[in-house]
């Protein structure tokens, strides 16, 4: 089986400081990988290198493109990479306002990716937007409201709909539940879990919340100071952590 994403020795430095280094892994179709670590561990830097938002200083990020198989997205030209960014890739930001157009209606936000790849039939675009709002549990009568009128949880669900409408194969998520109330988080996680299963999505989720990865991720990568210190099956890493840092991380979670 060809991996969907093949990451080889990715490194990113900020001057003398290490952003992340020596990161390699394969992500297979349908797999969900969590990247955990504390603030400054390099997990967001890594995610941005993978998603093409940052150019890594070394290494390759090969993506299994539909037409040409594995291609290094680091050396790929910008138009091609941006095309991936609005077709096969999706990026869910921690703050919905970074991933949404706040002055455009919910329907327009969802429809944008469709129009970006050439949809030119208003009725069909609107139907697709209505369908996706339903799938992320936003009432159809909110389709013409702007995201500014939405709660934080709704904005985040709208961002997800906007990203998934073109049927991407790989979703990058940066702290998708950060900043949300716990009850809102649970609903969002459950929704994401359902969508990931239903669409057979592959995903890379960066978070510092171990409960999020327990629920969503098949496998886990633990980062500290820019390095990967442990990888493995999610429940194995959380229940039988091998590295000192992972043990500390797991034992630091407050039990309810």
């Amino acid at each position, binding site marked *: 089986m060809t991996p969907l994403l093949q990451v080889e020795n990715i490194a990113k430095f900020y001057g003398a400081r290490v952003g992340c280094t020596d990161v390699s892994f394969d992500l297979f179709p349908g797999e969900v990988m969590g990247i955990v670590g504390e603030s400054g561990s390099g997990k967001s830097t890594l995610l941005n290198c993978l998603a093409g938002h940052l150019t890594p200083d070394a290494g390759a990020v090969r993506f299994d493109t539909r037409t040409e198989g594995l291609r290094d997205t680091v050396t790929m030209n910008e138009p091609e990479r941006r095309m991936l960014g609005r077709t096969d890739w999706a990026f869910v930001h921690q703050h919905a306002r970074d991933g949404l157009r706040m002055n455009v209606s919910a329907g327009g936000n969802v429809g944008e990716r469709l129009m970006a790849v050439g949809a030119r039939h208003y009725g069909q675009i609107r139907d697709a937007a209505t369908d996706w709002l339903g799938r992320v549990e936003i009432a159809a009568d909110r389709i013409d409201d702007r995201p500014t009128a939405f709660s934080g949880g709704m904005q985040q669900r709208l961002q997800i709909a906007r990203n998934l409408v073109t049927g991407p194969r790989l979703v990058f998520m940066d702290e998708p539940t950060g900043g949300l109330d716990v009850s809102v988080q649970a609903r969002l996680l*459950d929704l994401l879990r359902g969508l990931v299963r239903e669409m057979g999505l592959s995903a890379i989720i960066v978070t510092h919340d171990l409960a999020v990865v327990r629920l969503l991720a098949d*496998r886990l990568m633990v980062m500290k100071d820019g390095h990967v210190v442990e990888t493995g*099956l999610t429940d194995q890493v959380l*229940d*039988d952590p091998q590295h000192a840092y992972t043990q*500390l991380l797991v034992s630091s979670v407050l039990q309810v």
Partner: protein
Amino acid sequence: MIQVENLSKSFTLHNQGGTVIPVMEGAAFEVAPGECVGLTGASGAGKSTLMRMLYGNYLAASGHIRIGGVDVATAEPREILALRRGTLGYVSQFLRVVPRVSTLDVVAEPLLRTGHARDAAEARARDLLARLNIPERLWGLSPTTFSGGEQQRVNIARGFAYDYPALLLDEPTASLDIANREVVLSLIEEAKARGAAIVGIFHDEAARDRVCDRVIDAAAFTPKVSA
């Protein structure tokens, strides 16, 4: 079906002065299809640790755990996930609750994700829930709010929904009433009859005697502490 060879395990507590606690050494046994093996031994002998290692939840320090052609001790995460999906079932003592998903879907899920049609999967789920005496009015609700006993029965129904060739059972009859205990024991007998290889922990001696073909004392694998 299940082959364990020279398996060992220790825990290193990095944050407590690097203390190393050896918990298992030289474990070796086999379970054939249609066979049920009970793990015995005093509390702390390592029964649960062994079960968790078989399921890939705990990492083996050395040795092999071959289940259905996969060595769990060295397999990639996705190989273990595939094994858990289609070959190796685990009925733990606690239901890991998924918010908002109905009981019927919780039970049908192992069938759905192995490609069974929704109709057939739900029919099987209904049948199991009925046999385990979960009132039908609860089927549409999330088991989150159920009593401990109800949750355990939902968990058992889920564990037996798909016909796994290998099955791990952790105290499946604990705290069940006589009628439900009987249902669970007959489910185990049916699984054996269709050829499942089963490893179980049963504190209920009568249950163990009824379903297990033989027992293995986990204490035999406990490292001999010299000090």
